[in-house]
């Protein structure tokens, strides 16, 4: 009498809740700003504006005008052009440096969380050493030894970001590696590589990516600070940080020279934070990964 009741007519759960409802207007404004910054940064060479390095000594600290939409800086260079070229620096360094952290830190974190034991202790220990190292001293040392350049700046900030990504990846891996689906893969005879790549990585990737966006925001600020201190990109390359630094001298006469790049940085960092935060909330384990 008792037979296996075929579940062919069993209902399957309705498709997941529309996520769009969680993304408020603030999120879309942030996305809009980031898109704008990307657009002008990419299109900078073809935009019809003066060169950011052309100095016009007669028009120093000029107010807003049709020729110079945002005026000129202390050396007569067009503010808007410098702002836009500064955005390129911020984005390049802001995106590339965390990528170093994401790949190296993420890999180390996953391996440490998966293999545990002495390897983990070694990784965590060395990350602690790196964290304890004063970042400014490192920046000074690298620029003194290797010189100032965008590449070196990116490397410094990238390396400094590795411990944070390692922590995120390791924490995520520790929770997941004990779950039954990983043991199931092991029981099927999957190699470690397969488990790490096919089972763990897709799950660890989400918190890592959300953290990446926050890392972009932090890196932009860090680059700004280093450039402000003269340790970042060398002049005459425009960077928001160096613009703020140069604007310091004109604070009483033309405060806009410092504030405009500061506002640009503020908006960009805020937008990346908002997007990163929203994505983190969406990839909360309660939503997707049960």
């Amino acid at each position: 009498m008792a037979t296996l009741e075929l579940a062919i007519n069993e209902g399957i759960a309705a498709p997941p809740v529309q996520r769009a409802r969680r993304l408020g207007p603030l999120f879309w404004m942030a996305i809009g700003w980031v898109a704008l910054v990307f657009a002008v940064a990419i299109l900078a060479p073809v935009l019809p504006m003066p060169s950011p390095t052309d100095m016009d000594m007669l028009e120093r600290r000029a107010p807003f005008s049709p020729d110079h939409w945002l005026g000129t800086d202390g050396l007569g260079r067009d503010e808007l052009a410098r702002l836009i070229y500064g955005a390129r620096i911020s984005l390049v360094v802001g995106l590339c440096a965390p990528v170093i952290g994401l790949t190296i830190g993420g890999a180390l974190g996953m391996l440490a969380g998966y293999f545990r034991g002495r390897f983990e202790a070694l990784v965590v220990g060395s990350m602690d050493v790196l964290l304890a190292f004063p970042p400014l001293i490192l920046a000074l040392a690298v620029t003194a030894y290797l010189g100032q350049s965008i590449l070196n700046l990116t490397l410094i900030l990238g390396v400094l970001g590795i411990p944070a990504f390692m922590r995120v990846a390791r924490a995520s891996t520790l929770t997941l590696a004990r779950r039954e689906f990983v043991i199931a893969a092991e029981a099927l005879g999957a190699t470690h590589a397969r488990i790490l790549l096919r089972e763990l990585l897709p799950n660890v990737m989400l918190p890592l990516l959300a953290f990446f966006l926050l890392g972009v925001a932090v890196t932009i600020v860090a680059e700004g600070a280093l450039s402000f201190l003269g340790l970042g990109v060398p002049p005459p390359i425009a960077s928001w940080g160096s613009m703020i630094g140069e604007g310091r001298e004109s604070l009483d006469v033309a405060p806009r020279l410092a504030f405009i790049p500061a506002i640009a940085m503020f908006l960009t960092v805020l937008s990346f934070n908002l997007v990163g935060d929203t994505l983190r909330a969406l990839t909360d384990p309660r939503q997707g990964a049960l």
Partner: protein
Amino acid sequence: MSGSALLSVEDVAVDLPTPRGNLRAVDHVDLSVGAGRTLGIVGESGCGKTMLSRAILQLLPKKARLSGRVMFDGQDLARCDASALRKLSARSLAVVFQDPMTSLNPVLTIGTQLIETLQAHLELDTASARKRSVELLAAVGIPAPEQRLSQYPHQLSGGMRQRVAIAIALSCEPKLLIADEPTTALDVTVQAQILDLLAREQRRRHMAMILITHDLGVVAGRTDEVAVMYAGRVVERAPTTALFKTMRMPYTEALLAAIPKLEAAPHTPLPAISGRPPDPTRPLHGCSFSPRCRYVDGRCRQEKPALSDAESPDHQYACFHPIRIAVGGVT
């Protein structure tokens, strides 16, 4: 029901707004339990029994909407304000949850939790509260109670933790104890001990008790009355003996039949209930059990059967085709 009920749940419904639509977790439930009596609420996950207990205790999530009345000792709990509710529930209503690891604060010692409760609700000084705590722990069967006061929940086994949770619940001499799946997370030998403990304390204190569980075996020997819930409604309600001997609902019958019995020979095929409980955000026309019922017909799919007690006042069921035969012998 005869007698004056200590707790009377009248036409209670709980609605939860969810992104997928309104979720009716509890659908117009009427229940009552008198002093010294035990009511068992049986149902599977998603039937609404936990939401019902939260509704009684006024512990519903903020977004939930409660309608109906929860009459406890003459007062409607749903209409009480926060401070009146606190005073009332502290002294008269107690609850024991399923997982003692999460119902006890992991960073406070057992002693702190017990003493704090006693001080807050009975206004005892520390020394008397401490003495009373030791007595309570001993009463619930915890050996070496003085040592336990300084231990943390994680240092105790699951059964011990649940005993502590029961001690905290009983500390203020409640009139009604709600036990929400108190033994589901415990081993079967410990389960028996905990249920014995609850029964003993109930008899001693002449307490009313509501025992919520998914296990028909647990209610069989330890309750006076049983209410079976399915998809947010009470579908059958009867004194325990009557329920098992003359059950009327096909769901109750199917549930009982699906439990492997110790007396049955190995490899006896189990009469499984096909399908699964309905999605609460998409309530069905007609009877909620109709897609899975072996006695279903057209009427069942169109009309929702109301809870009726046509046969006998004590035994209510919601079905157009109640099972007529008494349960006895092999199904």
